[in-house]
């Protein structure tokens, strides 16, 4: 069934910044923490959210875990956009036929 979620969204610039940094370079939590004025648990929570959304993946090396943005996380959107990219020209062709019938 279709759900129409109603959001009362609040921008979270820190989470956005975490994602953007990880899209440029793989990092562990302490590397990520430097540069942000937030605690390590806060960074970890952002990472959890990003991982749950499929936007960040992790790799363990010794006692460190390294994080990076997962481009596959964005793949479903690309598929959806591609479907619509193909649909619009077909729809406009139908519009042309409708207009032709309207013309007196």
């Amino acid at each position, binding site marked *: 069934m279709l759900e129409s979620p109603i959001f009362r969204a609040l921008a979270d610039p820190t989470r956005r910044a975490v994602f953007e940094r990880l899209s440029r370079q793989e990092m562990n939590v302490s590397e990520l923490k430097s540069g942000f004025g937030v605690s390590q648990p806060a960074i970890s929570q952002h990472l959890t959210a990003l991982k749950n959304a499929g936007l960040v993946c992790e790799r363990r090396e010794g006692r460190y875990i390294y994080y990076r943005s997962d481009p596959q996380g964005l793949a479903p*959107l690309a598929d959806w956009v591609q479907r619509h990219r193909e649909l619009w020209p077909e729809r406009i062709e139908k519009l042309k036929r409708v207009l032709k019938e309207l013309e007196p």
Partner: protein
Amino acid sequence: MKHTPPATEPIVFECDLPHSPALVWRALTDRDLLGAWLLPNDMRPEVGARFSFERADQQPGYSIDCEVLEVEPNRTLRWRQTEAGDPESGWRSVTSVVTIELTDNAAGGTHLRLVHGEFTLVSAALYEPLTAPKASATVIRWRSLSSTKARNLGDIVCQLRRAA
């Protein structure tokens, strides 16, 4: 490390029609005419009006929920739409904005420009509490910085929002 981004740039489609903008406008805003080329709907061309497109090709009851954002008769129609995503891929819904602009062309007809963008994915994670008991919600929204091709994820503005 560099990653290749998906195509999340807006869809832009343009064409010229031999009809007047007023006639094209009718085909965009009259329910029956709109239904004849797009999808069955209950459109009202008023800012703030909510309407739905019914997708008979999908499961019964599947609809695309819309809200009219901008109406300038014979010129501009813009709406936001939300439709269910693919639950298996982890995305619950996709919200996007469709803008159709009509201008007079030199041939006495209409130039139609359609932009479909501002794609917003809502993750399935939205519905699952990250840390019990207070569930937080994550909405991922992005758009291209420009119409030029985005070459890495850093080119995509990604706004992560938390809904209370």
